[in-house]
């Protein structure tokens, strides 16, 4: 559905995207993570053809009209009411008659006569999201979609997105909220230094590493620390890919384990680890 090959982009001599290559198939949902300035928004704009890459190729089987975009920064124009703004954009898609529906879903029906520019950031995001999905696009690209939304609006957004995922719609989304990333997507793209450092399925990440936690007598402290466990508030903890082997070592050493728990990795711990390595580099 979408294929990016060796995409490069720089601004005023400063390289933002060095060499980005990835493929996406229909129905996939991808979350793009990375530190500020990693090139996420630039990459989204290149996919949306809002920016031209300096090098590389984009191949897409989708027509432009089948791709929708929810921008990061509020993109409003002055002097138009919420109704005029929404109906203009929907009319461009031949869906002017759905203006009321979009405003209702965005919870902005009561504000239809207000100047669009005066909406709060969260209200704008809700409106831009509803405008983007009303045509049921095949690919929805969202740049920090929940920034500025209140809790209830976020819940509604997650519900609607989950329903759309069931229909086979594809997503590319950037976010800074890691707990949200798990709900939004199946696949993680981690950008670093203008390149994709990690491209993995989120489920795979979660199963790949596990955290072992337990309580043990302090007399085993030296041994456990030497085995790489961290101690905090009476609990020993270790992130590992070899859970069974690790527990066997503990049992062989006759460490009495209390409240032993093995939990799957979270995206949050995985990304923290990536960010930690990035800082060290």
């Amino acid at each position: 559905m979408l294929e990016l090959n060796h995409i490069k982009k720089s601004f005023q001599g400063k390289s933002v995207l060095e060499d980005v290559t990835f493929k996406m198939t229909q129905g996939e949902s991808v979350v793009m993570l990375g530190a500020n300035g990693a090139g996420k928004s630039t990459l989204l704009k290149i996919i949306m053809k809002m920016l031209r890459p300096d090098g590389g190729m984009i191949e897409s089987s989708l027509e432009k009209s089948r791709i929708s975009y929810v921008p990061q920064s509020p993109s409003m124009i002055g002097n138009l009411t919420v109704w005029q703004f929404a109906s203009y954009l929907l009319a461009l898609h031949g869906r002017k008659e759905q203006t009321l529906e979009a405003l209702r879903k965005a919870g902005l029906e009561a504000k239809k006569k207000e100047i669009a520019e005066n909406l709060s950031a969260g209200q704008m995001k809700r409106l831009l999201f509803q405008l983007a999905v009303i045509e049921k696009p095949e690919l929805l690209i969202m740049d920090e979609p929940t920034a500025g939304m209140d809790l209830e609006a976020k819940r509604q957004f997650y519900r609607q997105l989950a329903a759309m995922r069931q229909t086979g719609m594809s997503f590319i989304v950037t976010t800074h909220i890691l707990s949200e990333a798990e709900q939004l997507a199946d696949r993680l793209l981690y950008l670093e230094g203008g390149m994709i450092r990690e491209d993995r399925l989120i489920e795979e990440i979660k199963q790949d590493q596990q955290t072992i936690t337990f309580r043990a007598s302090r007399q085993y402290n030296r041994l456990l620390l030497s085995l790489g466990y961290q101690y905090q508030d009476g609990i020993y903890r270790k992130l590992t890919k070899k859970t069974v082997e690790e527990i066997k070592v503990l049992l062989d050493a006759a460490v009495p384990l209390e409240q032993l728990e093995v939990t799957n990795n979270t995206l949050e711990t995985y990304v923290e680890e990536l960010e930690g390595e990035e800082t060290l580099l």
Partner: protein
Amino acid sequence: MKPIMLTVSMESKRMLKDKYFLVFSLLLPFVLYSLFTYINRGQAIGQIDFDYYFLISMTCYSLVVTSVQTFGIQIMYDRKQTWMAYLFTHPISAAQYFAARMITQLLLNTLIIAFFFFISNAWKQFDRPLGEWLVISLWLLMGSILFLAIGILIAQTKKLQTASVTANILVLTFAILGGLWMPLETFPNWVQAIGEWLPSHIYAQGAWRIAATGSLAFSNIILLVCYFLVSFIGVVFLQYKQRS
């Protein structure tokens, strides 16, 4: 065609609510017209009654302000607010959008010409043939395309503040040195020598000449076309530079 018509409709609603447009394009020129025609009552410039001469001057001034300042700064503002980038993710191309903006401005310019001509005619009771009104209106409308191009040229500036200052300086230069606020004959010779070559003067001179002689000077058309081509090439060059 549909995206253009939708955008013209949307932009017209937007512009008619724009306080800057209402104050600087309609109210201020009308106040200046009332003031200067009172001060210079009973006088004539060349073969034209001052009231009529200054009606043309103020209509030109209003069109220059609207096209260079209001239009140029608005395009710049929309660009900076990422509105345009977002809009182009919808089914409308940049060419359609800019065509719609130009059409909207030309409609507004028609409205400005009609506003000044109707109000002043009702007030001052000019006894002029309808054909002359129409030819002057057409000249003013066509000539305003040059100032729209200058507005778009200014909108290519990187900073909003730079664009705003440039537009202000340019409009004041066009208005004062171009003889729109005061007849150029009242200035020293060296100022007149500069003013005669300004596009605003050539623009207004075309209309004054129609009012005085009923005909257009070919040199006025050529000079305005040259100014337009320079502005147009400037826009294309800056667009190309920005994209690359």
